[in-house]
């Protein structure tokens, strides 16, 4: 006999003691905590496995990493509990698990580096996992700061032009700086100062998404006004093409000036998808694909590095000793891993150059196999789908576009990175969100996450009964204002 199902009506008299209070909308924070505990458990076990198979003993590193990691995500959880209580309960645990796995793999590659250093009689390099823990701490701090300070994500729309301009400036700085301050391994995407270097593009991405979400919401109606109807497709009017042309030019600029194919693709496709969501018109997608094709055609004709990427993609083993080396090593690693993987700590992922950053997915494929890689991809898929669900659920258009843009950019990044490492598409230098070694990437993605969680909180928040404001003016008694 559920009391809650019975509506208080004339049929039943009030029970003694009155009706039970209306059930409180569940925040599912308990679920989140349990899932985070699960992520911590997996991460810790993985660390033990790595240490056991690499060092044959358990070292203090393990306790250090596991404890810091657990503490960080418990703090993140408490911040969400306090400042975004209705947020989606899956988002943070998934990120915690991805981040934890990334940390495990970086630690595992540290051990390989230490070993090869010992083999060549070089000094042991300082472990990158320490640095990564530090950066995770910084990133979680940024995450918590956004949760605390950003009372309402709608405020972001107010500063959209400022943020958009900042994004463009961020994006442009490495292109303007001399190569000695901006170039690392051929990619001109850094700001390098002594003792400190960031990839501004990672942050520019978020700022530009906020900008586009706001602009698109404001100008939505303009874009949806009827254009020509060609072959059953509504094409937009020429004068409405402005935003996409701007996005396209920015992307091409990034590609030309910074030789950064990945970021270029990431920006353009995200803007394109946001435009499609805002206008609900397939015509935009077709135009976008056309523009992408044109951009790529000219890039291929004009730039040697693009041609090299493509020919390496078509036949990585053909130029094994040169440009194909990295992708070949990655494929060797993936093949060696096979279905079940070599086991954590038992493969040779350090054979792949840049295994900790761009190629961390190859390490997953080698040591955890297809199964592990599929699991990680599923985590990303759930994360993105949860983000898109947030976009579906949230009530305002700005929130919808922002959540969709932020989620989709993660999806594109994963697709470009994993596709590149597994030779599905040409290789571009992007990091795997939350997993790759690197401060800029971690911090930027956690800021992105914080915004997403804020939107999710707003989306799932039950409609609060409006506080009784002052009575409407019509009902207010006439008041005499004394003449002075």
């Amino acid at each position, binding site marked *: 006999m559920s009391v809650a199902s019975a509506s208080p009506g004339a049929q039943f008299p009030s029970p003694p003691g009155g009706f039970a209070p209306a059930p409180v909308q569940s925040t599912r924070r308990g679920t989140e905590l349990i899932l985070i505990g699960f992520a911590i458990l997996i991460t810790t076990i993985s660390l033990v496995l790595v240490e056991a198979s690499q060092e044959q003993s358990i070292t203090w590193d393990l306790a250090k990493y596991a404890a810091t990691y657990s503490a960080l995500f418990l703090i993140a959880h408490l911040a969400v509990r306090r400042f975004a209580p209705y947020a989606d309960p899956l988002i943070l645990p998934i990120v915690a698990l991805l981040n934890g796995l990334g940390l495990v793999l970086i630690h595992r590659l540290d051990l390989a580096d230490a070993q090869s250093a010992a083999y060549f009689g070089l000094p042991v390099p300082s472990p990158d996992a320490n640095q990564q823990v530090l950066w995770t701490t910084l990133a979680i701090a940024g995450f918590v700061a956004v949760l605390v300070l950003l009372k309402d994500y709608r405020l972001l729309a107010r500063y959209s032009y400022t943020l958009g301009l900042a994004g463009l400036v961020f994006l442009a700085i490495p292109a303007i700086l001399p190569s000695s301050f901006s170039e690392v391994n051929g990619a001109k995407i850094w700001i390098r100062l002594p003792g400190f270097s960031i990839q501004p593009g990672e942050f520019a991405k978020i700022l530009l998404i906020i900008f586009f979400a706001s602009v698109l919401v404001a100008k939505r109606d303009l874009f949806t006004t009827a254009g020509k109807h060609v072959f059953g497709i509504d094409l937009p009017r020429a004068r409405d093409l402005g935003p996409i042309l701007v996005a396209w030019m920015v992307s091409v600029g990034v590609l030309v000036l910074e030789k950064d194919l990945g970021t270029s693709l990431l920006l353009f496709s995200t803007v394109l998808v946001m435009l499609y969501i805002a206008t609900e018109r397939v015509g935009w997608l077709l135009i976008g694909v056309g523009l992408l094709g044109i951009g790529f055609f000219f890039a291929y004709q004009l730039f040697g590095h693009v041609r090299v990427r493509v020919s390496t993609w078509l036949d990585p083993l053909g130029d094994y000793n040169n440009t194909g080396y990295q992708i070949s090593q990655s494929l060797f690693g993936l093949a060696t891993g096979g279905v079940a993987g070599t086991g954590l700590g038992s*493969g040779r992922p350090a054979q792949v150059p840049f295994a900790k950053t761009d190629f961390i997915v190859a390490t997953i494929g080698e040591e955890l196999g297809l199964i592990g890689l599929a699991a990680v991809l599923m985590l990303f898929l759930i994360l993105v789908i949860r983000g898109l669900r947030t976009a579906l659920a949230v009530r305002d258009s700005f929130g919808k576009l922002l959540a969709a843009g932020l989620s989709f950019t993660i999806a594109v990044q994963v697709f470009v990175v994993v596709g590149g490492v597994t030779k599905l598409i040409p290789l571009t230098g992007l990091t795997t969100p939350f997993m790759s070694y690197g401060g800029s990437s971690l911090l930027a993605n956690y800021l992105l996450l914080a915004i997403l969680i804020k939107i999710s909180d707003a989306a799932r928040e039950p409609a609060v009964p409006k506080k009784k404001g002052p009575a409407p003016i019509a009902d207010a008694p006439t008041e005499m204002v004394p003449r002075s």
Partner: protein
Amino acid sequence: MNTPLRRVAIAVMVMVVALLANATYVQVIKADNLRADPRNSRVLLDEYSRQRGQISAAGQVLAASVPTDDRYKYLRTYPPNPAAPSSPLANAPVTGFYSMQYGSTGLERSEDPVLNGSDNRLFGRRFFDLVSGRDPRGGNVVTTINPVMQQVAYDQLTAKGYTGSVVAIEPSTGRILTMVSTPSYDPNSLASHDGTETTQAWEALNADPEKPLINRAVSQTYPPGSTFKVVVTAAALAAGTTPDTQLTAAPQITLPGTSTTLENYNGSTCGGAPTASLREAFARSCNTAFVELGVKTGADAVGDQASALGIGGQMPGVPFPVADSTIGSIPDDAALGQSSIGQRDVALTPLQNAMIAATVANGGVRMQPQLVSELQSPDLSNLATTNPVSEGQAMSSQVAATLTDLMIGSENNTSGEGKIPGVQIASKTGTAEHGTDPRNTPPHAWYIGFAPAQNPTVAIAVIVEDGGDRALAATGGSVAAPIGRAVIAAGLQGG
């Protein structure tokens, strides 16, 4: 805005499915090809964690893998023979090296499938190892090398700091008994698990002007000098010349059609008469007589005889690459005259020259040279035994017998130390000019031969580069012959 959002969600799923499909293709379908790619260093690295088979010679271990407590589990070692601590260096031309950084050479490379256990003949055992959870092990390679002769040859060459090579063959089977090249290197230094050590060793070996990593027995060709007279004589005897045929004894001869002269060693007359018999010319190694003999025999006959002896052909029995020996092009009689005394473009590997001696010793039948005697599974049971392979009659048995006779005469006329009491050797020496200024460049000293002359069990070729310790005064007899005799003595004692 919700419809496009749902479509985007579907697109994201499609993207992930595409990634998964591609990953499945790489990790499952193409995986075998990628794993088997020789450039996949993971395969090589895995091999270091496996027990590699042994390379042995007559019961002596030349190369073995010993367990270590570092992460590579097994260290490739080339153990010294307790009686001869230099043996890893002596055996290096046979075993080659096996290095994590620098690949492998010699038998380590050519017999790699057996040694690392991937050979198909080891499939059954590999399967049982897999089922029983035991680490797969490699098979063993037994060489034809006679360790005593090998060591004597190496000690002889290095005692005076010679750069050179010794190859000895069992004439009746083609089994290679000795393959030495000096200066040599210690393969242990390249097999170490200490990267700094191997890098230093590798750089030092490559910077060494003496090129110790080259296996001179098979990778280097030299002008054979007077040892080539054996080939010319064989061709001449087949064409009807007899040991008593008279040839010029003049101290110098003008090459046909030119004004260039060619002279005997020291400008001496060949014997005391105006003419000399082939027997005497062969024994004294008179150049002028052989220019005449070569021109008389003809380029075709000499060339045919050379190819019948294997010059310019493949060497299928030696598992690693052998440099091509050649008599060069002989456009005219002047060239033929120079080539007849083993100069001009004639170039032989020490192995090829040893084969010439072995063929004469074997009654004219050329046996394929062999370096691997037997392949064994890890438990020492037999996988494959190499049987002697005949490459056909390179010269008639009569010609071979006559040549043996002439070579006995040459040996008896050759000074130098190391004659073995009670053993008749048949031999030919050579002093080969080379370089851009041959008169002032120390000559290569050659010695080829076999013993006992009437029932040969050992055929040999010795080369000492650049005159050894005698510089311009070096001759095959003074520098190379004593080494050859010492190695033959070691072989005969052991046999």
